[in-house]
Structure formats: structure tokens, C-alpha cells
């Protein structure tokens, strides 16, 4: 037996984690709104000036945060998402034709990621049947109900964010920051996980792992998390 009995995925920082990411690639980004987004990786991609990115992400960030940072700098060529409100620069680029946008149902987005990671090339879903989403797609009836054929994504890189991770790449998410991160981790040929807390192997309870390290190729300790809140809603103490 060698000195370690695990496969280390650790890289020193975000800059090292994006090694091999080139212009005109398709890239997945975990997160829902600004919740659970890979802040450090997005900043590193901006700083390196990678362009022509096709983004697969549920949302497109806000003007000055999240993927909005890469829109500001025109680094995104195409956005594949389910909901893209709350972003003026996105709207401007979309209406002017600078940005290509493909909108797909949220559950289909999630399943196309999962399928990619699970070795399922395509699947049938009822979502979008009879709408413009179904245009040009194969329709098949199962149990009397029409379904459309959707294909797995193909993404060379996926960037995800977890709460805790260990050096072997095992991940634990917190609250609703889990969202798209697990299935994007599965889908990426190179999955980069940034974590709030990177620990030694053995420190995480194997019963509590949400994503096993086999799906993670690189992991690093994130820094300076802003974790911005998009819609701050509260109730009075008297309620």
C-alpha cells in the first residue's frame, strides 16, 4: 500500500483550477440565481480573459455579480439557461444579437446534466410538449401521454461550488446552494469544485457525502466568498 489510499484532487487556487480551459468551449456553472455559484472560478475565468464561452447555467447572474461579470466583459457567446431575468446587460446583449440564448425547461436542464454524467445519451420528458421547445424534436407516446426526446449535454468543463470538500474531492452542499451543482459535477469531463472549507480525507462522514470524489477532477479552497443575496425578504419579529 502506498503512502496515501486516496486520489488527491487538490489544486492550489482558482487560476490553477481553470488550466486547460480555452476559448470557445462549453462550460457548466452550478448555482441557482446567486445561490451556490462558483464565485472564485468565475473571477479566474474573467481575469484570464477566456472568450467565446457557451454557458450552461440555470441563470445568468445579475449585472455586476455571478455570470454577469463575464457578460460585462463580453466573454460569453451563448447562454443555455431556464431563466434569465434580473440582468440588464444580458437583455441588452440579447436584444442587440451579440449574445445567443437558448431557453430550456429547468427540469430538462437538470436532467440533461444528470444524463451526461450517467452515460444516458437521451431521454423522453413530457416537459415542453406542444410548445415551441418541442419544435423539431422526436415525439413518442408513453402510457397515453406524449413526450419529447431530449439529449444529454456535452461539457468539457463544469464549475461547481460546495460547502465542504475533502482532498479526495468528496463534496457536501449546504441548504438550497446544492441546486444544479451535483449533476453538473457528474456531467463535466473536468469538474472543478471550489469549497468554503477544504478538509483532510477522513474528516467528512462517508454517510453524509452528497457527491463522491469520482465526479470531481480538481478541488480548491475558495477565498473571499461574497454570497450575495438577490432578494432579501424578511418578516417582522412580532409575526
Amino acid at each position, binding site marked *: 500500500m502506498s503512502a496515501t489510499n486516496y486520489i488527491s484532487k487538490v489544486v492550489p487556487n482558482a487560476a490553477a483550477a481553470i488550466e486547460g480551459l480555452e476559448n470557445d468551449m462549453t462550460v457548466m456553472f452550478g448555482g*441557482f*440565481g*446567486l*445561490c*451556490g455559484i462558483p464565485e472564485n472560478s468565475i473571477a479566474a475565468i474573467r481575469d484570464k480573459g477566456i472568450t467565446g464561452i457557451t454557458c450552461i447555467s*440555470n441563470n445568468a447572474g445579475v449585472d455586476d455579480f455571478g455570470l454577469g461579470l463575464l457578460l460585462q466583459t463580453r466573454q460569453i457567446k451563448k447562454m443555455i*439557461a*431556464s*431563466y*434569465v*431575468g*434580473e440582468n440588464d446587460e444580458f*437583455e441588452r446583449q*440579447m*436584444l442587440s444579437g451579440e449574445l445567443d440564448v437558448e*431557453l430550456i*425547461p*429547468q*427540469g*430538462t*436542464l*437538470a*436532467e440533461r*446534466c*444528470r444524463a451526461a454524467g450517467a452515460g444516458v445519451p437521451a431521454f423522453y*420528458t*413530457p*416537459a*415542453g*410538449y*406542444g*410548445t*415551441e*421547445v418541442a419544435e423539431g424534436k422526436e415525439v413518442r407516446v408513453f402510457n397515453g401521454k406524449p413526450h419529447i426526446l431530449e439529449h444529454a449535454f456535452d461539457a468539457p468543463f463544469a464549475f461547481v461550488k460546495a*460547502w465542504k470538500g475533502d482532498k479526495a474531492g468528496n463534496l457536501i*452542499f*449546504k*441548504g*438550497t*446552494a*446544492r*441546486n*444544479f*451543482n*451535483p*449533476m453538473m459535477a457528474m456531467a463535466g469531463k473536468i469538474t472543478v469544485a471550489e469549497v468554503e472549507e477544504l478538509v483532510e480525507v477522513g474528516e467528512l462522514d462517508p454517510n453524509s457525502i*452528497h457527491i463522491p470524489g469520482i465526479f470531481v477532477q480538481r478541488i480548491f479552497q475558495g477565498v473571499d466568498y461574497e*454570497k*450575495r*443575496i*438577490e*432578494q*432579501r*425578504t*424578511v*418578516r*417582522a*419579529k412580532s*409575526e
Partner: protein
Amino acid sequence: MGLSKDQIAQRIAQELRDGWYVNLGIGIPTLVANHIPTGINVEFQSENGILGMGPFPFEGEEDADLINAGKQTITAMPGASFFSSELSFAMIRGQHVQLTVLGAMEVSDNGDIANWKIPGRMVKGMGGAMDLVASAENIIVAMQHTNRAGESKLLAKCSLPLTGVKCVKKIVTDLAVLEVDPERGFILLERAPGVTVEEIQSKTAGRLVVEGEVPEMEF
């Protein structure tokens, strides 16, 4: 005088049954959670990955890692659980969620719904709406009976791009409660207090079926 948004939500809350898992859309549907009838236990699902969604947090207790599908800060009830988007939509497509309440721009008298896109204007996307309406066994639409221009939103055929086909079961508007029968059209079940059948007829463009005395809603 029709119902307020809060009263529409209150009327929809009367449809809740004990033991149901419920997905509430953004807008009026969100208000349904404020009117759960006494003795009824339901759990709210938000498609970004929580079952057992609770009310907004107290000021100072907001958690950036705990939001609903409208990106609002929320809390988790005792017994809540968190999960991935893929599992969340497995619950939805797999019909483990008993009721979906959502808003609409238009509904047709065969149950088609349009609520995600106005051609020529900025399109924000369908989010989870297409998955929800394609799969849910029980869909209630919460909306105003007419649009800002005073035109009926209950049509013979939707003019806007569809979100789903033949899926809406019930509609609660500021004027009426209606059931959708794909064969016959909108069946008028109840009137808002003080609203006449004639007014509802004049503001419904699709087929409207009025059978016998139509009672007023009770609160």
C-alpha cells in the same frame, strides 16, 4: 368589486388537502402559504431544492444559502429536506407533488396555458413552469380575469406561446372560480362576492358554461 390578490390566494388555500405536497409559483401563488386552513398539514416544495419551506426569516437571520425559486430568502420548517435540482424535478415529473399553483397570462378553454413569453418583448425564460404543467395532476391557476387593457385572459385559444397543453384543471380569478373541462370549456363554479354572472360572462372570451344558480365564494 372583485377579490384582492390576497383573497384569491385565500380562496385557493381552501383547495388544500391534508397530507399534500404543494408547489407554489411566484406572485399570487406565494400568498397561498399565508392562508393554510386549520387542521390541514401540507409541505411546500420549491423547485430549487427544498421540501418543507417555511416563512421569510426574521431580519438579521437571512441565509444566502437558503432561498426559494423566486430567489427570496426563506426558512426551513422542522422536517424539511434539501436536494438537487435533478431530484427536485424527479419529484415534479414523477407526480409526487399533489398540487401546483401558478400564475398565467392566458388560459384557453381546453386547459392550455401561456405564461412565459411575450414575442417582441424581453423573454426571461420558462424556469420550471413547463416541467410543472406537463406533469402535475392538479394545476390551479391564480390570475386576474382580465389583463391591464381590460381584455379577457380566459380565451378560446391562447394567442401567446404556450407553456403547456390541456393541463389546467382549475382557475381562481378576482371574479370567479372555474373548472376546466377540455370538452365543454370553463365551468363556472363560484362568483366573487357581489360579482354577477353577467359580468363574468362579459369578461370571459372562451366557452363559459353556467349551470343553475352559481353560488358566491365563502371565506
